[in-house]
């Protein structure tokens, strides 16, 4: 950082520090004899100098030479001060040493404020001026930045604080966002994370979700443009869940948790604002679903009878990860009576068969969210996730005769020539199983997918970085 430090010794103090008050007579005397200059953080110029020097403690003594810092002492320490200044007998009535206090520069939230104020802002995005009598939230609506709910106004300070949540450079390209195929920087993701209401520590998860969504496999473009119900569903694994306070328990798929609510929303706002994907334009959904505002939750790995979704999908245990799924709404699976895994698996299969339509095989993926009370049935019976999959695969091998056009009195169905074959409900890899939910309730959930596989969307799992 550019610092214009005068030659000689400069003492940086502030008015709220008892150590500064203790040494004030010493400093006054040294200033009077020209041995040093005293700079107060309580003045703008002093605060700017402290910020530019990265001072974290007061009093701090720095020696400048040729405009650059060559030596620094933090707190009061008689011997060190005498050595730096070249004067002996300082503060004879004071203790030998006394630690300093926190600089204003390190007050919570102050760094980003000072960065904007003193010109250190790294933000490159266009600035939008809002009139004094114009409400900021209304201004965001007027400019089309909202999904329908109020957004947090993206001030420079909020964006700077958001960028503190990642180690990545603000100008790094994260992904190319459909439908307009716009290169999106870390900074633009941060601005939209502010809009969504994210805290800075959520940003790495949002960045990963954006990256995962904008892959050829996930196909965010098609998912946006489709007339189908679906939107991106974000499932989070690993230690980041606890680190940012995500909900995987009671009401995990519902409202009320800031991280769950705002991470999913931030992804959708990136697609809207950066990608230009708006309902009624490229988004042609016939009905849509409420999850298109936001749909993000964490897996309850600790309470799960099985390995985590991210581990099943190839990542090491303990690795934070995001899995993107092109999902529609949530449908319930009620089974309050089954106490053996065979019976419960049959209930799951019967409900899973209805995804999209009971007569349509291999066309739509699904996520099965197994709740704790249902999970307990499999744990107590010693069923692994693979064992459950095997059972479901077998139960969901459907007779073509039941699926063909006209069967069951329904014209919807597969070509009549397939009457003699058996077809799986889900393509290989098309059924994801996760564990989440509150401790009470013999209910699980199914999140139906969109057109699956290479012709539509495939689930994508990515490691969460910093």
């Amino acid at each position, binding site marked *: 950082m550019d610092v214009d430090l005068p030659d000689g010794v400069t003492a940086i103090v502030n008015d709220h520090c008892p150590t500064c008050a203790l040494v004030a007579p010493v400093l006054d005397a040294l200033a009077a004899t020209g041995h040093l200059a005293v700079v107060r953080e309580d003045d703008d110029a002093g605060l700017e100098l402290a910020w530019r020097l990265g001072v974290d403690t007061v009093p701090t003594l720095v020696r400048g030479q040729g405009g650059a810092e060559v030596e620094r002492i933090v707190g009061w320490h008689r011997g060190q001060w005498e050595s730096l200044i070249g004067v002996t007998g300082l503060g004879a009535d004071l203790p030998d040493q006394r630690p300093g206090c926190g600089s204003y520069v390190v007050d919570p939230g102050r760094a980003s404020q000072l960065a904007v104020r003193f010109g250190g802002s790294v*933000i490159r*995005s*266009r*600035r*939008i*001026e*809002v*009139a*004094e*009598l*114009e409400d*900021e939230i209304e*201004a*965001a609506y*007027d*400019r089309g*930045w909202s999904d329908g709910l109020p957004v947090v*106004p*993206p*001030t*420079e300070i909020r*964006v700077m604080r958001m960028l503190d949540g990642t180690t990545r450079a603000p100008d790094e390209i994260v992904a190319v*966002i459909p439908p*307009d195929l*716009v290169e999106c920087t870390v900074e*633009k993701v941060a*601005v*939209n994370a*502010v*809009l969504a209401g994210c805290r800075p520590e959520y940003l790495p998860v949002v960045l990963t979700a954006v990256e995962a969504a904008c892959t050829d496999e996930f196909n965010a473009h098609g998912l946006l443009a489709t007339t189908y119900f679906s939107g991106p569903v974000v499932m989070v694994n690993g230690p980041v869940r606890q680190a940012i306070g995500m909900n995987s328990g009671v009401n995990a798929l519902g409202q009320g948790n800031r991280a769950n609510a705002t991470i999913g929303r931030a992804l959708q*706002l990136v697609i809207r*604002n*950066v*990608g*230009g994907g708006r309902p009624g334009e490229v988004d042609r959904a016939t009905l849509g679903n409420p999850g298109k505002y936001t749909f993000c939750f964490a897996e309850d790995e600790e309470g799960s009878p099985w390995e985590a979704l991210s581990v099943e999908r190839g990542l090491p245990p303990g690795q934070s990860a995001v899995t993107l799924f092109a999902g529609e709404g949530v449908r319930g699976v009620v089974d309050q009576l089954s106490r053996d895994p065979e019976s419960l698996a049959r209930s799951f299969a019967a409900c899973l068969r209805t995804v999209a339509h009971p007569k349509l095989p291999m066309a739509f993926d699904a996520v099965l969210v197994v709740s704790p009370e249902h999970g307990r049935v499999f744990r107590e019976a010693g069923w692994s996730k693979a064992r459950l999959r095997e059972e479901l695969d077998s139960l969901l091998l459907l007779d073509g005769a039941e699926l063909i056009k006209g069967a069951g009195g329904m014209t919807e169905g597969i070509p009549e020539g397939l009457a003699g074959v058996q077809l799986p409900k889900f393509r290989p890899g098309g059924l994801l199983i996760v564990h989440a939910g509150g401790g009470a309730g013999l209910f699980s959930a199914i999140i139906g997918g969109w057109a699956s596989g290479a012709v539509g969307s495939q689930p994508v799992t990515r490691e969460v970085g910093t």
Partner: protein
Amino acid sequence: MSRILVDPTSERSPGVRQRVARPSSLDGLTVGLLDITKARGDVFLDRLADLLAERGLTVRRYAKPTFTKPAPVDLRHEIATQCDVVIEALAD
């Protein structure tokens, strides 16, 4: 004092929003007259105000602080919220 927000979009659209379409009739509308403060622009606008008032229209008057700079964002917001159409006079 105006405030600054950071643009969350791809910045492919102009930062200044587009004008609304011209109305087919002025009946029942509020007309803003914006004097850019060039000399004698007020003479022209005074006459326009008389003519519009004779037609029963509501007229509101505004002026830029200086013709050398764009209208301040607060003034633009005031006009946009108070008027349906605006006539800006340039004179010398």
